[in-house]
Each structure stands twice: as C-alpha cells, then as structure tokens.
C-alpha cells in the first residue's frame, strides 16, 4: 500500500500554513483535503473517509479540541489518528489532551513540515501494523 491510498484531512484556518502543509504531504504522496475551520473539518469527515487528521487547535467556529471531542463521541472516528498543531502556550495541557482525546502527536508552532510528514507516515504505519500484523 502506498501513501497515495491514504487520505489526509488538514484543518487549519491560516491559508498559507494550510497550503504549505498540504504541499508537503502531497509531495510525500498523500491525498490531502483542506478545511479552513473546525466546522468545515467536521463537515468534511461526514462526507469523506480519512485515514488521518492534521488539525490546528485555534480555529474559528470550532477549535481543534472541540472537533476532536466530536470525533471521539462517534464510534466510527474513535480510533482515527489525530495530529494537533498548537500555537498557544498549551504545553502544560498536552498530556491531558493526549489522554482524553487520544491525540497521536502534537506540534508547537513554528513546526517543521518534514516532521509532520514523518509523524503522519509513522502513525499510518502503526495503524497498518495493528490492522494486519
């Protein structure tokens, strides 16, 4: 299975940042959909199936955390890997987010797009191993 089979949702309100993340993920071979706020992201997951979600925490309409909470409340999305980008000084809250919302990884802005791509690949690999050992 190649990266091209994998569909990634990028939820990020800053257009420039969303586009650079998308560019890097696409360069790695993934199929990427971008949503510009939490609600658009929630609508997107209803319509399409995603293998992994990269979401910003601070977004208008619905924050990343709220979006995650909604996801986890639905059985279908309970185990969907989520990588979160945070801009605020949320370092202290990260352990709680990971435990309660099952966030796979967090990245503080400014982050390295290469590391995001690597994290996405690693988590998809881990899921793959779990599903087909």
């Amino acid at each position, binding site marked *: 299975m190649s990266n091209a089979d994998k569909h990634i949702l990028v939820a990020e309100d*800053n257009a*420039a*940042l969303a586009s*650079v*993340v998308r*560019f*890097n993920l696409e*360069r790695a071979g993934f199929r990427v959909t971008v949503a510009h706020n939490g609600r658009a992201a929630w609508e997107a997951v209803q319509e399409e199936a995603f293998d992994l979600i990269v979401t910003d925490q*601070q977004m*208008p*309409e619905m924050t990343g955390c709220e979006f995650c909470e909604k996801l986890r409340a639905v059985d279908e999305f309970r185990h969907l890997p989520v990588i979160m980008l945070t*801009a*605020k*000084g949320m370092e202290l809250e990260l352990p709680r987010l990971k435990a309660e919302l099952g966030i796979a990884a967090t990245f*503080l*802005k*400014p*982050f*390295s*797009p*290469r590391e995001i791509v690597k994290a996405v690949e690693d988590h998809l690999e881990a899921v793959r191993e779990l599903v087909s050992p």
Partner: protein
Amino acid sequence: MLARSVKVELPRRVVAFYLLCSLVALLWLVASAVSVTKSMIAHHAEDELISYLRHAAAQTTIDLAVNGDVNLQSLVERFARERQLLFCGFVGGDHTYVAHSLKRRVGQPHRIDNGITTRHDEIELVRYSSGSLRIREYRTPIQIDELAGRLIVARAEPSVDETLEVTSRHAFVVLCGPPLIVALCGFTLYRLVSPMAAVDSQLRQAALAPTLADVELSPINSRSPSVLGWNRIVHNFPHESTPTALGQRLSDAVQSLRQTKSDDVLNSLTDGVAVSDQDGTITFANQSMAAMFASGSQPDSLCGKDVASCLGLDAEEEVRSALFDPDLFARHVVEELERGADEAKQFLRIARTPIRAADGAGSPGHVWTVRDVTQQKLADAMRDEFLDNATHELRTPLANIKAYAETLSMGDSLDVESQKEFCNTINSEATRLARFIDDLLSVSSMEAGSLTLNKQGVDLERIFSEVIGKVKPQMDQKRLKFETIFPAKYPQARLDKDKINVALVNLLGNAAKYTPEAGRVRFEVKITNSEIRIEVEDSGVGISEEELPRIYDKFFRSSNPLVQEVTGTGLGLSMAHEVIKLHGGAMTVQSQLGEGTTFITTLPLE
C-alpha cells in the same frame, strides 16, 4: 554655725497692717509719755508750792521786819488768790488764826485732830480730812522778835471718788489698750494668714506625697483673691480617689489624641480594616470596611456583629472554612472572595492576621483587611488575553516562515513558480511579523508615556493611497465592497506620517476584520477650513452600548463571540486613538450591534 537666710516676700496687706500697728504703738507711747510728764509736772507743782511757801514766809518775815506792823490779812488773801489755794492763814503764838483767807476763821483756833505729818526741812506737811475733802496743809514757822507764828497754806487733794474715777479711766486705757490692740492685730492677722496657711499645708502634703495621685486637695472657704485662684486649681484637679491625679488625666489625653490620630489614618485607608475578638465579633471597623460591607453607613454599625456574616461568607463555604480553620488561627491567612455578578462583579482579597498578645499568650483576636482587587483582576485578565493573542500573532507568521523556508530548502522537486510563491509568502509573513513587533513597541512607548510625534509637511493624498494599498488585500480576501471617497484637492498639513498611517491602517484593518464576508466598508475624507475629517464606516458586527466606553482601553477586546473568533491584541484601536489625540484631534464612534460601526476622526489643520 550656718545660718540660712530666707527672703520672704510679705503680702502688701500684711505690711500695711504692721505699719498701722506700729503707728498705734507709737501713739500709745506718746500718750504714755504725756501722761508721765503730766504727773511729773504735778510733782513739780508741789515742789513749787513748797518753794513758794518758803518765798512767802521769807517775804512775810521781811515785811514784818521792815514795817513792824504789817497787814497780814491782805497778805494771806493775796497768797491764796495767787496760788489758787484752798486757804492761806497765819497762826499766832496762841494757836489762833491771826489772819485767814477765809475771814470768818480769823480768831479761831488752829486745830488738826487727825492729821499725818511729814516734814520737808523746816516745812511741815500735814494731811487730813475735813468732811469729804482731803486737805494738804503746809506749815512754816516765822519768828521775828516777839512775834512768832506759822504761815499755813492748804490745798485740797482730789476726793477718793474723783481719784478712783480718774484712776479707773486711766486704768482702762492703760490696761485694756495693749491687749485690745494685740487681740485686734491677732484676729486680723489670723484672718489674713489662715487661708494661706491652709494652702501652705496642702502644698506641704503634696510635697511629701509619694505620687501626685495620692494628693487630695480641697477648696478653702475664703474670698481672698489668692484663695479664689487656689480654689479654681482645686476645682480642675480630679477628686476621685481612684485613679485620680493630673498624671492620669494627662496620659488619658495623650491616649485619646493618639487614638484620634490612628483612627484618622485607618479611616483614610482604601483597604477595609476590621478587628475581631476571640469570638469573631467585630470590635472595630474603618470607613472603607463600612463602605464595602455596610453600604456606606457609619463604621460603628459593624461593631458587635459577627465577622463572617459581615463579610458575606455565610454562603461561601470554601472561603469561610479556610478563614475560620481553628488550626490556622495563629497564622496569617489570605483568601479571595468573588461576589456579585456581571458588571457588579467584585474580587475581594481578605487577609486575616492574628493580633499578638502583649504577654505572648494566645491571641486576643484578629485583624481583617479587605482589598478590592477587581481592577487588578480585570487588568490581569486583559493582560493574559493579550499575551495569548500576542503569542498567537507572533507564532503564526513565524510558523509560516519556518514551514515555507524548510519546504523551499528541500525543494528539488519545486518548480520556479512555486518557489516564487513560497518566497512571496515568506516575505509577507515577515512583514506581518515586523508590523506586529512595531505595534508592540508603540504600545510599550504609550505605556511609558514616551510616544512622541515627528511632525512634518506631508502629502495627504499619498498617505491615503498608501493606507488603501495596505488594507486592500484584506478587503479583497473577504470580498468586501470597499468604497473610498476623497476630496478633489488637499491642503498642506503637518502630521507624523508613519503614525497616522498606522492609525488609519488599524481603523480600516478593524473594519475589514470585523465585517462578515461580502460586507461593505466606506472610507471617506472631507476637508473643511480647519480640519480633516475621516470617516470609516463598516457593516460589521458592531459594538454593544456597554462596551463602547472601553473600546479605547489597551488590551480590551469585545466579549462578542464574533469578535473573539478573530485573533487580535486589543491594541489597534487604542493606539489609533492615542495617535489622533497626540495630534490634537478627536475620535468619535457611532455603532449599532449587528449593524455596523462608524469611526469619525478629525485632525486639526494648522
């Protein structure tokens, strides 16, 4: 032997009285001297009578010797007349009166039965009584030839009654005068001296008493000025036996002065201060305390009340249990209390400190201080929000720059078009970062009050077109209808170009930020004779009436959710307002929640 001379200053009255007494004594002496002299003169009169008798006898003898016959009768009559004698006579050898001043006695015998005889040389003095009279009879013999006889003169002594009366009269003066004067002097002296002696004795008592508290002074019953003065002193001297004395009164007065002073200080404090006893009953509260918890009534109205209910802790279980934990009674405890809701919400910081007993044993109560930290809390909250926003504002462009730069650096598969686009993004994000940092610096200058203007002649048209250039992309991104109306001609103006530029970009930036997509923004500049009038109107979220007075506060951001979802620092409008004010201009705002906002800025033309 040492003698100590004491100079005593006598009262004038005493001196005057003494002088008076001396005068009386002197007069008495004079009177006595007169009296003695008078008696001496009387004695002298007797001597004179005797010598007169001798003289008369001698003359009679001579007359007899010369004339032989002599008229004895006329002689004795003359003698009697000259010396105012009782009688005068001449007794012949036959012991009968040859001559007598009382003619009827001539020829009668000279006879004395009951006389006392004394002799002065040849003169014989016989005293005898005749009827009621005491008579002194002086006799002298006369002897010439055959004629021999005796010349007799008699004088009446004062009668016994008369003598007694005179004596008694003198005796009264002599015997009673001096005691009377002494008694009078004594009485007057007593009257004069006794009040002063009373004062003196009380002063002695005061001198001997161990402390002034033991002295008991009493008023004196007299009308002399000194005593009246003394009585006034005594009147103002405390009479109670416990704890009397001037010392106590003085220390009371000092105490009360101190009390007044410290009360003034306590009442001037903006913090509420109260003192409670061991049972938690308020014994003292200052004015601020009353203002906070007794709706401004007198602080005394809090006294006697329970401190917990006064502080409104009845419903605040958590705060109350912390403040009234018996284990912590000997410690300093600080708790925060939230009361009221919405606009009237208050944050109170309550501190409880135990009063240290003077003897170190136990605590006689607590001092409570209450500080209203609402403003501080609001400021803290605003600052926290600002920090959050600022961090976001800094990190977002930084994140973009880093992400694009890194993407570019591994860009073997990038086409030229993408590379150019990435570089442009990095550039614009760097510009955004720089602008934000400028804002931060301006804000810190504003905080320090050092925001100064660099005024110069400016081309208004150019400033406006630069501003439009900066905000246009934002407008376009949100597909806003951006309407600009400019005058045909611009006057000369002196402004700080850069700051006015920032202010207008902030105003238009806000209009763009807070106007929903496909909304409308109008930017109109009008020139009048004296001012430039700039209107920025949008069809955005609007500002509620309650929030209007605070929009120029630093870090203030509306609680409107539509505003909250847009990032911002709460600095833009505050800065724009400051810049316009520094230019001597004014900024007014008209707004309707959900309809839109119009900012009208006026700048004076110099």
